[in-house]
């Protein structure tokens, strides 16, 4: 049980770190290099997909997992 919990926590931490890296990257890219709408939109899509998949557990909708 505690191992599963630690695994879930670790998954959340890795996702959070990914999101932070992508946020800092889009900030640095936009401020220093290019403010390309397409590029920034792609980064935003990746971030949104990570949140929907990991934080929001979208797969529970069709898998019917309990808590």
């Amino acid at each position, binding site marked *: *049980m505690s191992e599963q919990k630690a695994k*879930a926590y670790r998954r959340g931490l890795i996702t959070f770190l990914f999101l*932070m890296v992508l946020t800092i990257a889009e*900030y640095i890219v936009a401020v220093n290099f290019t*403010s390309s709408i397409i590029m920034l*939109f792609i*980064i935003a899509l990746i971030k949104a997909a990570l*949140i929907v998949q990991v*934080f929001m557990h979208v797969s529970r909708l069709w898998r019917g997992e309990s*808590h």
Partner: protein
Amino acid sequence: MTSYTKPIHDDQHAAEHANHEPPFEVQLQSNRLGLWMFMFSEIFLFGALLVARFYLWGDTRPDLSQEVGLFATVVLLFSSWFVYRGQTSMEFGDRQGFKRNFLLAAAMGTAFLISVVVFEWNVFGLSGELFGVELFGHLTIADGVESGVFFAMTGWHALHVTTGILLLLIMWNKGRRGEFTPDRSWGVEGSGLYWHFVDVVWVFYYPALYLMGTVMS
């Protein structure tokens, strides 16, 4: 004088009704589907404002404080992470962890609200710098239709953040009173889902408001 005696069939009806209650798993799936449909409908609202931004601003953006925008975004990401941790704690029966993380998430959400309303909107008309960084925004609602889009986008989002914070605090209080168990914690899951949705909206709003295009002259 007549006296009322409860008909036997009332009790039978209640018992039959109880037997017809859908199982908890079915209710849970219905709740999830309903909330996702609600969030899907919200996409149209936020999406329309995003389209208005591109229609009116095109490849430009107002001169907003980059530091305040980045701070607000980071703080909101932290809050989403804390909500995830709170949900996970509850699912594994760690009530203390749930309470701690939901409170932290609500605090981070409040910090986001302050950074938008007090600093970016500058509702108190303040001015000041910190390490050469200008802390308070200059854009006002009277600056024309361009600023109107900014206040509409951030305003609608801030309204959702406010309701999200209230939901998190209500669930924290219910959790504190022991109303959730690892198996029955839809309130925790639902409020968390709503909070993450608010975060997803900001994931698109942040670059659209602060990063995309060149600064308007």
